């Protein structure tokens, strides 16, 4: 096959995904949309009646909502790793995951950004958190890690969204060329009049490189800042220097797993085997394995530091984490995050796509539980034993509903993305065909 034919076929194959949706798709969209709307209604109920409708029990003041926040921000990191960091490393295998990963980043950040609002006691004055000159002559407390979050996640979202959009411009032009009617107009507007001239390609590559370089440090910094929500406190189990690299590695770990979860069914549904091969998956699986090892190392270090320090606050907390009220979650977490991914040392298993899908789902569960265990166990057992939580924290239907709503919103956005925007990076794939 000649090059132009190959290119034309690539265009067609990938844009075919944007055709009329089938029943399964509509069912999926319906379910996710209802979950999202349900979550929204529950949030309204919570605002009306106060955070008491959630399962918080003093001193567990942070639980499911912050777990969700960290979880979704973490997931976003992998997308940027694949699109920005791997770009800088000239990793060829990134091109097939590139677009879905970036989309995942943007949507994950949209979902994550809601949770700081959801967990506020007085959500209606959320604007107190935004640093703008007020008539009250008051600024925000720049020393607080929560404000760093505002900057970090805000910056990350802005940069990721711009990166996502800018990277898509040539593909939107392809879509413009191959579609008719109202869609053509929309893609025309979105592609900003891209003509594919040499000059434009030169500018595009410069901008893409710039944005990739700008986004790369964010991969390390944003989740470090989010981890400092915990590390900057004085709670045993939170106040430890390993948190920044631990959380960043964990973020990439869970994000990679989410990429696999998204791309495996996507490849099957839209018949993209030519463009997303088993080799690509094997490379992603290697990233999964590497980050799992880093996370396991961090677990060991945490326990090791606590034991070595002899500090009774620390030792008691870590004993509680492994053997206390939440030990079931702790051990599931260890199994999912540390033990099961070790099987990926076997090449056969790395190339076994159904197995990868299962592992990625387990990793997602494990990583969600990891944040939950860190937050809830440290809050339950800190310094003053009188304040130790004799009650086990149990999320109520409101928290469960909002969590499911978040997942619903994410997958709904992803499903919408799949049908409306080019779901793979056509131009980059064509470069390596």
């Amino acid at each position, binding site marked *: 096959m000649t090059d132009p034919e190959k290119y034309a076929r690539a265009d067609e194959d990938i844009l075919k995904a944007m055709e009329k949706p089938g029943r399964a798709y509509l069912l999926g969209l319906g379910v996710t949309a209802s979950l999202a709307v349900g979550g929204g209604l529950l949030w309204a109920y919570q605002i009306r009646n*106060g955070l*008491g409708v959630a399962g918080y*029990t003093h001193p567990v003041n942070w639980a499911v909502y912050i777990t969700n926040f960290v979880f979704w921000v973490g997931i976003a990191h992998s997308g940027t790793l694949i699109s920005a960091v791997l770009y800088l490393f000239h990793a060829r295998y990134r091109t097939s995951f590139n677009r879905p990963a970036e989309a995942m980043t943007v949507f994950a950040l949209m979902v994550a950004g809601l949770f700081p609002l959801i967990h*506020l*006691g007085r959500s209606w004055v959320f604007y107190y*958190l935004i640093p703008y000159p007020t008539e009250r002559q008051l600024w925000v407390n720049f020393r607080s890690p929560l404000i760093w979050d505002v900057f970090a996640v805000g910056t990350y979202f802005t940069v990721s969204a711009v990166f996502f959009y800018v990277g898509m411009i040539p593909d939107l032009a392809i879509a413009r060329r191959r579609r008719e009617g109202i869609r053509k107009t929309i893609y025309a507007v979105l592609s900003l009049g891209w003509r594919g001239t040499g000059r434009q390609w030169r500018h595009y590559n410069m901008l893409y490189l710039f944005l990739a370089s700008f986004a790369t440090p964010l991969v390390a910094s944003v989740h470090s800042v989010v981890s400092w929500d915990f590390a900057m*406190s*004085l709670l045993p189990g939170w106040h430890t220097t390993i948190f920044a690299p631990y959380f960043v590695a964990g973020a990439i770990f869970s994000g990679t797993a989410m990429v696999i979860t998204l791309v495996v069914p996507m490849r099957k549904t839209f018949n993209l085997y030519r463009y997303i091969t088993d080799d690509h998956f094997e490379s992603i699986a290697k990233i999964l394995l590497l980050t799992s090892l880093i996370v396991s190392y961090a677990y060991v270090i945490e326990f090791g530091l606590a034991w070595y320090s002899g500090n009774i606050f620390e030792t008691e907390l870590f004993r509680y984490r492994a053997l206390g009220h939440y030990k079931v979650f702790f051990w599931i977490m260890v199994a999912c995050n540390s033990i099961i991914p070790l099987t990926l040392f076997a090449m056969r298993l790395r190339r076994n796509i159904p197995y990868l899908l299962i592992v990625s789902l387990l990793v997602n569960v494990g990583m969600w539980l990891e944040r939950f265990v860190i937050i809830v166990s440290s809050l339950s057992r800190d310094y003053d034993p009188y304040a130790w939580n004799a009650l086990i924290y149990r999320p109520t239907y409101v928290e469960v509903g909002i969590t499911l709503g978040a997942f619903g919103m994410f997958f709904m956005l992803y499903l919408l993305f799949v049908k409306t925007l080019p779901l793979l990076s056509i131009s980059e794939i064509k470069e390596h065909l």
Partner: protein
Amino acid sequence: MNRRSFLRFLGWISGSTVMTACGKRDSRPKLTSYLLPPEEGIVPGEARYLPTTCTECPAGCGGLAKLREGRPVKLEGIPGHPVSDGGLCVRGQSSLYRLYHPERLRSPMVRNGGKHQRMTWEKAFSLAAEALKESRERGHRNFFLSGRTTGTLSALIDTFCGRLGILRLPEFEVYAHSAVKEANGLLFGKRDVPHYRIEEADFLLTVGADILETHVTPVAYTRKISRAKSRGDFLWFHVEPHFSLTGANADRRFAVAPGGERYLLAFLLREVVEKRASKSRPPREFMDVFPPSPAEEVSRSAGIPVEALREIGDRLVAAKRPLVIVGGVSAAHQGGLEAAVSAALMQWATGAIPERVDFARSENYRSVGTFRDVEELSARMGRGEAGVVFLLRTNPVFSLPQRFAFRENLKKAKLSVGMGDFLDETLREADLVLPLSHSLESWGDAEPRRGVVSLLQPMLPPLHDTLSDGDALLGLLRKASGEGPAGSYKNHLFEAWGKRLGDSGRSKLLEQGYVEATPPGKAIPPNWKKAASVLKDTGPAGEVAKPVLVLASSLRTFDGRSRSLPLLSEIPDPLTTITYGPWISVTPDMAKRSGLEDGDEVTIASSDWKVVLPVKVQPYLPEGVFVVHRDALESPPVRMQARTGEPVEYIEGVSFAKTGRQAALPILSGSFSQQGRGIIPDPAHLDESRRHKRWTLYPEHEHKDYRWGMAIDLDLCNGCSACVAACHVENNVPAAGKADHLKGREMSWLRIEPFYEKGEVEFLPMLCQHCDNAPCETVCPVFAAYHNPEGLNVQVYARCVGTRYCSNNCPYKVRRFNWRQHGWPEPQRLMLNPDVNAREVGVMEKCTFCIQRIRAAKDKAKDESRKVRDGEFTTACAQSCPTGALVFGNLLDAESRVSRLARSGRAYRVFESIGTEPSIHYLRGKHPGRKT
């Protein structure tokens, strides 16, 4: 889109944005003017203080009511008051909730069928007068039963009963101290409870008397103990069959078998008379009859090891000014009279009378009767003798055992008139219910002990259609007799005061709230014949069948009378930290043997009675004993001491079975052990921690004029929780309720943490430490928590967005979050302190060191162009503390009390190693100078 549609679109957007600014502006708040200018000295917006007396329990402590906008919003102790000397207990602080309780009786009612119907006072008086007339004609007897009543009201009741032909019965109190009174009556001819001057003693031995909780006048005793401790040579031993707050705070506690106190006291009496060098010795006739008490035998009967017997005996013999007090559960058993007689003889033999045991200033329990008197009343009503029965502020239906059949027999009276403020168990059975005003709405007086007259005056007009006790009686008297003293009870009182105290005495009473006459005391030799007749057979009687269920008095509700106050259920019981719900305390061994955990339900039964209660494991409780607070049981099947009429406050030989269910029992403490964290450190470690210098990156705070701090003396704090109640009332802290407590969402800013260690319980009041390097301040994203220039950690409610990071970062976990909008049902809204913001949902709150008081004090000082002086004002908690454990002041002033205490060798700070630099210094180890 073309230009036209674009412009149209733009117009829509701009227009609708501007429209959102529209709104109604007619809903303005109002500014109401006075009609007449306020009286001289009253400034709107400023607080006014008027003295009165707390009536929540019979002790009669003086209370200073703080009035804002013409209503009381806070009660505090009156400094210098002869009973309470500035302290006010947890019940006294909570009594404001009684005034504003939504369920208070609002108008007179008559029972029609099963329901109560409202009526006017006129009609109610007519009804009662009619019934009295009828009863006279039919030859029935009329009865008047009240709780302990003193002062002018008691005299009025006498007049009332005399003029209308009503038999006034001895007053009914559950804690009537009948055994002690009988003993004193037999021996000294004074049937009363004497005034115990504990502050003069160097060795105090209390047997059963819960002097810190409910015994006679707990605030006074607490204050006396603090004073005694400060002298340096004070030692306190407590003996009891169960485990109480009083026992937890004594220097040494000994467990005695229930009913075994009489043997112990007989043994000690013999030790005292034989070994003490004293001029006063009992006569031969007595010593011949007085049976010997060999130590081994006594040890067996009393269940106390021989070494302990010897130790107590030796101390008693060696002490220069010992004082023995028996009472409570230890006088309320079959051998109670013997125990009380032995104790009284010891008081005489150690020369305590009259220096430390003062009958001249006795506690005015003479007119209080016994259970026998009420039993007789019930029997007479049962025989159909009763015409009209008046019940004034008493709840016999709740407190008396079933077999007295008081409820059934009351129905047989022609007309029962109940006078009180709540529809409690007794008033629900009454035919005619007359609602009485709260003491804060009434004129009156009280004589808590002989020689003391304490004022009651109204702070606001009655909230509901109620009358004060005196006015109700006067109205009834006038209606029923057709004549009678004209004028209100206030006139009656003023006249009576004028006669008794003279004009100047009356003015003094009105101004400071009390007057005290000082009658001289004298030594009274005991009646040895009677003593011998009581003590001659202290031979080993039958043992009490174990296991025993002890009915303890409740710090929070006295004998159950304060159950209806929500704040008292909100504040945890200091030993168990249980808030809502009754429970039964069991020993750890029993719990282990039966596989019981906190909250498991058990059925406790005796021959004809049973009750189902959840369990709480109580460390240090002696074996074979269960404890239940009296307010948990309606009509407990107590037996009665034949001779004295004292109820036997325990039930023997109870059976015990698990129901298999779990009850939701809110236990606030997460751990009763310090877990090795040195929260209350071993005094030996104190020096070490003070030498530890810390390197910090935090800059030093600059304080200009004031740096507020607090010193808390753990040797004085006894866990009574008066400070907790004071804080709730002062700062509009809501009572969260049981559902919230079960989720750990209590709102209390100050809590008492009990830590059990090595046989001792220590109480640590934990509140916001106002740390210099506060971990909460750095993490609040909006500066709602910040450090002010006077050293306070301030919480700005209007700014708080509710991220709760501050609470996460607080190692002391003193910050409370409003998980829901707490309501104040009418008329409780009137109780809110207008100087403190009532917080809305989603906002974090915590102790502010009563910043409203700081602001008021600085305002006053600025008016006078000076700085605030030490002791000029204090926080609500420190003010109410009956022991004086909490001291608040300016740490910049080197001469202030708090600075001197903070510099003392006993001072330490909790979790100092974290580096938070708290402003609260705790004082550990025995009070300075205590050699023992």
